[in-house]
């Protein structure tokens, strides 16, 4: 706006322009950007899966990931280890924040994201299911463009499989407290390197003898509940 005003003023000063008879004085207008603030509560609905710190990304139209495609390294890291620094550095993000810590089964966390008001504004949410190889729960894209201050949206999320690590459930490969194994490993050894829904964990009590997981780590959909309230 300011730049436009300056350009107009410069134009009207141009002596070669025969149309302009006298200079038009344009008062510079300082426009304060309108900030939208969203307060998000995130509840873990599983029986025995800790959920890694929730990642929240605001974007205009290109979601951080798409079903049926190959996971980015950022998403691979999030889904295999819960670490979200790389994921949050997503290049099309207008804003990106992480909840402070992981939440256990039955727990709820709150995270706030602020972003300059946009005509089109979407939010994306992601967190790892800790006692798995590469499961994450996610709302890829939620349109909050028309959400009024004070208004809220409530969604439940399902479990996805990043497709970046085979679901062996072994003690060496599951990073959560059930096994304390390795987190991120750049080797991609799953059946297909694409994001699908997660088939669930098997556990050592249900036929996978090499599994470090017990029946208490089984989960079903939905995995989490997310409530988004526009607070500013």
């Amino acid at each position, binding site marked *: 706006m300011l730049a436009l005003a300056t350009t107009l003023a410069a134009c009207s000063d141009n002596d070669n322009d025969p149309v302009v008879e006298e200079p038009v004085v344009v008062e510079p207008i300082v426009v304060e950007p309108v900030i939208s603030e969203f307060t998000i509560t995130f509840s873990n609905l599983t029986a025995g899966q800790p959920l890694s710190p929730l990642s929240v990304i605001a974007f205009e139209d290109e979601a951080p990931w798409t079903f049926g495609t190959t996971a980015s390294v950022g998403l691979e890291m999030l889904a295999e280890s819960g670490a979200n620094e790389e994921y949050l550095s997503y290049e099309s993000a207008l804003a990106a924040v992480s909840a402070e810590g992981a939440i256990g089964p039955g727990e709820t966390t709150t995270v706030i994201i602020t972003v300059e008001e946009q005509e089109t504004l979407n939010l994306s949410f992601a967190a790892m299911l800790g006692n798995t190889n590469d499961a994450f729960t996610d709302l890829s894209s939620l349109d909050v463009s028309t959400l009024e201050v004070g208004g809220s949206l409530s969604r439940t999320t399902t479990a996805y499989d990043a*497709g970046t690590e085979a*679901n062996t459930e072994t003690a060496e490969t599951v990073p959560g407290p059930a096994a304390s194994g390795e987190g991120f490993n750049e080797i991609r050894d799953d059946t297909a390197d694409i994001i699908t829904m*997660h*088939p669930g964990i098997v556990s050592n009590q249900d*036929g996978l003898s090499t599994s470090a997981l017990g029946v208490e780590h089984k989960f079903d959909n939905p995995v989490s509940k997310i409530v988004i309230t526009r607070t500013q």
Partner: protein
Amino acid sequence: MKASTLTIAILLAAASQSTMAAELDLKVTNLTKGIHFTPLLITAHNSEDTLFEVATQVSTALQTMAEGGNIAELVAQATAAGSDMAANPAEGLLAPAASTTATLSTTDGNEYLSLTAMMLPTNDGFIGLNSWKIPTEAGTYIINLNAYDAGTEQNNELVVEGSGAPGTPGIPAAPGGDAGTGGTGVLSGDTNTNIHIHPGSLGDDDLEAGNSDLSNTVHRWLNPVAQLTVTVK
């Protein structure tokens, strides 16, 4: 005489309004990690002629689809019922995470959508949508689909060539090429012979032996297993 003609005209107008034809764009996505879908059948039908009904006994046509993926009988049934249909839009199997699209023009009175496709490798599992009312308002609608069990075959989880015919026990194929052999057969106590939500496959961790020929880390699933996106134009 005049009055009754007018009444008929009003009735006809009201009737045509409530049974409006529709132009639909359809997209079906396989959400699973390790299950293929056999040829899809999507029909627009009246309130009676759905492809299946939960908690009832299956028709032979549906059993033929659920146990072997053959939709010929269902197509014949839907044709006889005057349904509009998109048959086999993927022209074969729909792989995990893959999508297929179709367009469907519905005729007056066909206000409901139904969908079926067999899930492989399963004995008689299928994805289903039963009589979803097509909205009259233009827009895009997303419907999550669950896995059903036709209730016609014990889920022994053994891959047996040629077992796609109705009544022949076994899983006719594992298109992912990731199933095993030499299983002794899962003994399932599932006695529900009506269409029900599929309890899921068990699988095991031995591709050469064990109860099941399925892999427990590859061939299980959680609902929803498919997503149908309907755009009403």
